[in-house]
């Protein structure tokens, strides 16, 4: 999800056209893991900004964004589609960290759902980059992750009783948990936020991601 807009196909065009959409607003979290749940982020990478070339691309200010901070190509382009089709203002909260496993984004409660007998601790990105956002009122979330889980054990069973990646439990457990915690954190303002995800693309790898792809879908059935 971190992949930058400017690095996508037609990226420079997307960056240049971003000033045409002042009703798109965006915010980027600081990549900050924490051992304890945080109420507020100690730093913010990009405070709320109106869509513009400098808001969607750090390079516009002459700073090389080697750490892929902002703006996520998929987050921006998804939000742009929603804005163009609905005509409504869209706020985008860009909180991501490339190369991380799903467990990094799960609370202790979510992990306990899948591994009730283990000594689970919340993931560092959950504590540092999700927990501080819970009092926002959100309408939905999108997710593009899973490459880092491609080597996971086949410790679950799918709806047919066939072997399924551990992801098949962790992923839906995280979604349910986020929904509940965003509801509680917003004092009931966030209700059943939608959750959209990208099933992994193909890439050159010795690890076969098919079980994660199937886990992403079969875990939803």
């Amino acid at each position, binding site marked *: 999800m971190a992949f930058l807009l400017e690095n996508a196909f037609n990226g420079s065009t997307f960056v240049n056209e971003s000033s045409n959409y002042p009703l798109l607003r965006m915010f980027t979290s600081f990549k900050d893991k924490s051992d304890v749940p945080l109420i507020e982020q100690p730093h913010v990478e990009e405070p709320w900004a109106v869509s513009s070339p400098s808001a969607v691309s750090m390079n516009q200010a002459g700073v090389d964004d080697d750490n892929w901070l902002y703006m996520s190509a998929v987050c921006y382009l998804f939000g742009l589609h929603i804005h163009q089709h609905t005509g409504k203002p869209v706020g985008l909260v860009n909180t991501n960290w490339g190369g991380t496993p799903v467990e990094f984004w799960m609370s202790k409660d979510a992990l306990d759902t899948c591994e009730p007998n283990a000594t689970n601790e919340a993931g560092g990105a959950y504590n540092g980059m999700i927990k501080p956002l819970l009092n926002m009122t959100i309408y939905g979330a999108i997710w593009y992750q899973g490459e880092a889980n491609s080597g996971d054990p086949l410790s679950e069973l799918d709806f047919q009783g066939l072997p399924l990646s551990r992801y098949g439990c962790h992923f839906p457990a995280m979604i349910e948990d986020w929904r509940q915690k965003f509801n509680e954190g917003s004092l009931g303002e966030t209700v059943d936020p939608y959750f959209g995800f990208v099933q992994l693309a193909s890439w050159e790898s010795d690890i076969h991601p*098919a079980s994660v792809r199937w886990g992403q879908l079969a875990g939803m059935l």
Partner: protein
Amino acid sequence: MNRTFSAIAIDLTDRTSPFGSVHIRDKASVAQRLAAGGLAVAYGADTYWQGPTASAATLHANGDVSVTFSNCGAHGLNLANTSGWELCVLGGDQNCSQANSPVARGGVGDWINAVPDLESSTSILVTTNSSDTNVQIDNDSTVLVRYAWDGLAFEYMQAGVYAHDEGFPAGPFVLLASN
């Protein structure tokens, strides 16, 4: 799970991405497919988004398998190319466990190459060639069928199965064929 949607990206392969092939650059297609799902599921739009979804597999007496799809779009399936299909008869040492590519002249428990053919606008008939396997599949076999299981399953925009008019691809699946 309610109020969820997904975008299938298995055909957005980018072998020559300067950032590494895991970092595909056609994010516009990713976002377009994902937004179609979002608009339909969460914003009240009447728009196609799912891609063909394998819903059931049936084992015929001669060992062929029919895979039936839902969400096939306005004019049904497009079998754009024949790669990516495998069958396996449960049993043996491997018991259909290998994640990797099909086994040449495979036996019971090995994944073996299979050949798809468009059977109807919503189903695909999957057969094996005797040159690919030494297993005689029949009505008593327990057969699995899977699609697009390889790590790099397809080249750019060249998946095997699409919704014909809408151009959305089917995702990978593994199904137990019932008889």
